[in-house]
């Protein structure tokens, strides 16, 4: 018992030292890593009607986050939170190319309940942004929940030192660096080039510049972003899943229900579980393997003893 304060002090110093070496949100990410790392919520049924679907998405999101100890573990009073869904495409929510707006609005509401001062929801869209923000349903849902949801301003991308393996520096959206907390909310979907778009891939939406250059070495560039940003929380939308022709999709015949939301602090574990929703193994996806090799998290998500909820 005598050693406890000393041990706590040393642990805090070690975490602090590590945080100094890591990205802008690393301190909070490390501090928040003192509870469950992964939580998986699954709905037993697949409601078709809009109200039932919305209720399912909201309950799954709340339950998944509750499994980690609740949003208050990640968001404190007065925090400014950046919520990063996938708003990349001019697609309706049913087409499952963009994050489910009910998942996004639930996360926003939970942030405010935890005491957040301000919640911002945005993404650097691939398709024309104004249309994509509206069509995805995210803008309306986020605004109704009290968030600011605006199209990114090209002038605000600033060259930022990432100290990555292949990206020493890149254009990052400056406002993202100015907030206290980052919550990544990707959707699970097929991707023609890297097999799956999950959380780590979703981080491409907070950077600008010639993002096509990433595709020459997607594994390393994405993991450079993951190592830099280290979101405080990842909430993975696997309610509807685009199983083919991603990332753009569009055909409802390619969309399947998985009725699952995953929340986690280990972005590698979250993506590894997400891969299974597409019938893939984590080892099939280059950036997950690279992130695991760089010790950003574990592909063996079961080793984290995820909290599972069947609703």
């Amino acid at each position: 018992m005598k050693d406890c304060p000393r041990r706590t002090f040393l642990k805090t110093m070690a975490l602090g030292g590590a945080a100094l070496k890591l990205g802008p949100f690393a301190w909070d990410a490390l501090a928040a890593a003192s509870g469950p790392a992964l939580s998986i919520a699954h709905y037993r049924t697949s409601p078709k009607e809009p109200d039932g679907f919305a209720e399912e998405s909201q309950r799954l999101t709340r339950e998944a986050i509750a499994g980690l100890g609740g949003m208050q573990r990640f968001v404190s009073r007065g925090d400014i939170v950046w919520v990063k869904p996938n708003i990349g495409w001019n697609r309706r929510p049913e087409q499952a190319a963009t994050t489910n707006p009910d998942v996004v609005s639930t996360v926003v509401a939970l942030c405010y309940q935890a005491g957040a001062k301000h919640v911002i929801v945005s993404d650097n869209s691939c398709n024309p942004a104004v249309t994509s923000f509206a069509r995805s349903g995210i803008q309306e849902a986020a605004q109704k929940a009290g968030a600011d949801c605006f199209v990114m301003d090209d002038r605000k991308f600033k060259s930022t030192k990432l100290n990555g393996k292949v990206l020493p520096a890149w254009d990052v959206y400056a406002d993202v660096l100015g907030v206290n907390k980052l919550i990544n909310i990707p959707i699970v979907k097929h991707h023609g080039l890297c097999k799956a778009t999950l959380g780590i891939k979703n981080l491409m939406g907070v950077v600008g510049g010639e993002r096509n250059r990433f595709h020459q070495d997607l594994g390393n560039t994405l993991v450079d972003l993951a190592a830099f940003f280290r979101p405080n929380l990842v909430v993975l939308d696997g309610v509807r899943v685009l199983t083919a022709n991603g990332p753009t999709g569009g055909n409802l015949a390619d969309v399947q229900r998985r009725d699952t939301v995953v929340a986690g602090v280990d972005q590698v574990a979250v993506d590894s579980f997400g891969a299974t929703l597409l019938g893939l193994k984590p080892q099939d996806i280059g950036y997950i393997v690279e992130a695991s090799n760089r010790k950003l998290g574990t592909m063996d998500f079961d080793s984290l003893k995820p909290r599972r909820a069947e609703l």
Partner: protein
Amino acid sequence: MKFWARRTSWLICGLLAAGFFPPQSSACGGGAPRTQASDIAQKHLLTFVGAPLLGNPTAQGAPSFYGPDNLYQYMDGGADIYLLYDFQVLLHQDLKSGQAELTVDIFDMGNAEDAFGIYAAERAPGYNFLDIGTEAYRNEGILNFLQDRYYIKLSGFGPGSDNLLEKFARVLAERIGGTRAFPSLLERIPQENRVKHSEQFTRKDPLGHPFLSPAYIVSYKQGESESKLLISVAKDPAEAKTKLESLANYFRESGKCEPAPDLGDGAIRASNTFEGRVIAVAQGRYLIVVANPAGDAAALLKQTAQELN
């Protein structure tokens, strides 16, 4: 007001047709300087959407054009597969007709074979197919079709959009003209037991092997068993034989490979634990492979060789 709205829509269409809207590269800008060839391609694409369309839709802004250098700005990682098929130019245009919002994307792939390749890569045999252009399929809110060297993708949102998509597609198909035929090789290979809409044309690593590029791949089903017929296209008969030898070497190293004179001159039977069994023969400038040979696969191989002779 209605009169002015209609006049405005005709004016916009007229301006489009006359090319008065300067082509926009993309929201993100950038990209290489446009070449004369891409300028011609862009002007040609404008003629498809420039003249008035059914329902008198109004253009929502100027059309955008994307080339190989900046397609990723529109499609992110989805662009790579288009580039693989030697994508040339994309015209993107948003339209509005009443409450219906429509998006028209016309991909100029440079030639009919590559247009077929990208179209086929994005379709599945279970889709809801229509007789528009060479082939079309639709679902709620989308209609995609292939015609000549173009892959056309239409999206609709809002009340009435689904009705307009098909009408739009038929008008565009009429304007595009050109060939409505599938690549001629597909007409020459056996029809019996062929899985409808399963035909693919791939430029990269067919069955995982770079030396098989480019190739057509078609599924054949007998009972519950499905075989894949792969036809790798070579420059000449010598290259086809080299491809066959590469395939034989690969199986010798990873499993086993034996001569199969009963299947044709120089034919092989091969297998390994990863890819299972294949039979293959070179015929003219083609290497013909049947992967997972099921049912009367030997007859399929021999008949294909005969048809391609």
